[in-house]
């Protein structure tokens, strides 16, 4: 998308085509650029959505990169912009800038096995990865998807889980912290890192993509290192306050890195040296 080549702060208009309820506080918005152009993005990149009069917020693009004329953002209601987005109806207009940021290194890890670890909303930036792998299955080795959420009701994209399991040489493991009474649950209970016991990594040939709450990423990263994964092969997608997405507003800096330009995807080697990473 070439909107705002001159003025990077000017959003382009996008129409809301469809809204899916993921869970009571999460919705997926299917958007279509009004100018008819496709939003060309790579898995792991994010866009910045405007609700005019309230503000802008960054969201990972959560749809398949192969889908050309529409794209999706999955939004959890936590504050001002996200509340405003929850009031939106199909047909409404939003502003979109982007895509921004460095994607998951899908080219670099060609040939490797992949472990995808996601916590809660953290599955959003990883969903395009899964769709990409499904399309280009022969490029990668074994794929394990480990997904944890607080409760079964907090999970997102549950309607796609069956199709993910059917991708060749791909396994999906699910866990929750807690199962409320009278809820059906036939998977694990416990933190997501415990799912790692199901995978038998070939360390050298395995890359790990992690996204979730900062605290979950912290424990996951520590465990992965202890297990012997290479720091350069463990990739995290970080989240920081952002006001511009283009390395001007300063908010997303971690040490000398900008999450918006140099990230949001970093490997552990890069992050290891930086302060203020994990709360």
């Amino acid at each position, binding site marked *: 998308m070439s909107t705002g*080549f*001159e*003025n*990077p*702060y*000017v*959003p382009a*208009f996008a129409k809301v085509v469809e809204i899916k309820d993921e869970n009571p506080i999460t919705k997926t918005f299917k958007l279509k650029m009004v100018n008819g152009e496709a939003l060309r993005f790579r898995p792991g990149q994010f866009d910045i959505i405007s609700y*005019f*009069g*309230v*503000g*802008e917020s960054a969201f990972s693009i959560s749809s398949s990169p192969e889908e050309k004329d529409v794209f999706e953002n999955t939004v959890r209601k*936590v*504050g001002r912009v*996200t509340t405003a987005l929850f009031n939106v109806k199909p047909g409404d*207009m939003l*502003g979109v800038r982007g895509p921004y940021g460095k994607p998951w290194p899908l080219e670099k890890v060609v040939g490797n096995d992949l472990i995808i670890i996601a916590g809660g909303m953290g599955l959003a930036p990883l969903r395009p990865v899964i769709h990409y792998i499904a399309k280009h299955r022969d490029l990668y080795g074994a794929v394990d998807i480990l997904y944890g959420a607080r409760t079964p009701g907090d999970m997102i994209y549950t309607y796609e889980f069956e199709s993910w399991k059917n991708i060749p040489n791909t396994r999906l493991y699910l866990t929750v912290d807690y199962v409320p009474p009278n809820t059906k649950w036939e998977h694990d209970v416990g933190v997501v890192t415990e799912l790692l016991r199901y995978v038998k990594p070939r360390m050298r040939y395995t890359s790990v993509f992690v996204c979730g709450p*900062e605290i979950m990423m912290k424990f996951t990263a520590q465990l992965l290192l202890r297990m012997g994964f290479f720091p350069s092969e463990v990739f995290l997608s970080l*989240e*920081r*306050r952002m*006001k*511009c997405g*283009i*390395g*001007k*507003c*300063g*908010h997303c*800096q*971690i*040490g*000398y890195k*900008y999450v918006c330009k140099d990230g949001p995807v970093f490997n552990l080697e890069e992050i290891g*040296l930086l*302060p*203020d*990473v994990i*709360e």
Partner: protein
Amino acid sequence: MFIKEDARYWKLEMSFVLKREELPHFSKHIVSKGYSLFAPVKKEGRSAFKKIGEDHVDEISLDYIRTTMPPLKALLIPPKETLLRIKDGRIEEVLPNPADKIAIMGVHPCDVNAMSLLERVYTDRPEDPYFKARRNSLLIIALNCKSADEYCFCTSFGTGPSLDEGFDLLLTDLDEGFLVEVGSRKGAELVGDFYMPKALSTDLMEKDETIRRAKGMIRKHVNTAGIQRIMTGALYNPIWNELAGKCTGCGACNMVCPTCFCFNVVDEIELDSGSVLRSRTWDGCLLWEYAEVALGGNFRRDLSARIRQFVNHKMNYWLNQYGALGCVGCGRCIEQCPARIDITNVVARLRGELL
């Protein structure tokens, strides 16, 4: 090949002397060329940059050491600036008019160098069109320093007290008047039709002497040798906690620092027109909200982490990010800190040069 003598000769050719009493006329001349002129004026003993109307050229006073506000930052990224106006599904860019020419007179070397640093941030791709537009229409008449006070430490970074580039015209306060050196075509045009006698080599000597004297007045110093290694090594030094006991968390240092560039963006509804204004305002890393994310999460919850960010950004990260340290030694953050925290002191202590 360009030898030293040639340089000196060429410099003389393009150097003039502006008599002290001619300054108001020259200022008027600038205004008559269609520039909005900004220059320092004295207000209750302190100097501040103000827009100077034709009738107020007499108020300009180039005898000052430091203004509280960094003049170039305030001009190029105003404290509050509307970026977009959105109404009825249309987005209007509120860009500065490229025809509005601005001249700023009397900015000291540290501030000009700080602007070059801001330029690195704002013209890094994608370029910031607001900054860019203002920068393009800006004419800089810099002023070498003839004195310094207890807060100045520009010599540590080579950002003062004199300037070699980055100006359109450069003034040096000499006994009789101002030495005027030309640094660009725009500058040459401006002096082209205002009569000033050519400078003599003695004037250049006097300039060197003035600068030497100014240098001699500078007492603060930051040792920048290997500074990145030292700063990174000190990320977990207890000093940050100690500073957090003293720092008020007011963010004044962020505001007055000529190289602090962070901003917040807010949408507001303009009631009478019904349009949405999207504006940016200066922000600073000393604030709680700066690193706050949804649901109360905060990556720099402790004031110590915020102070560490400020000092490390200037003295460490800048170098990786934009190839230069982010401090020009203007001394503003030291002078304006109600808690009397001194960045040079912090670095010196981390280096073990001070207890």
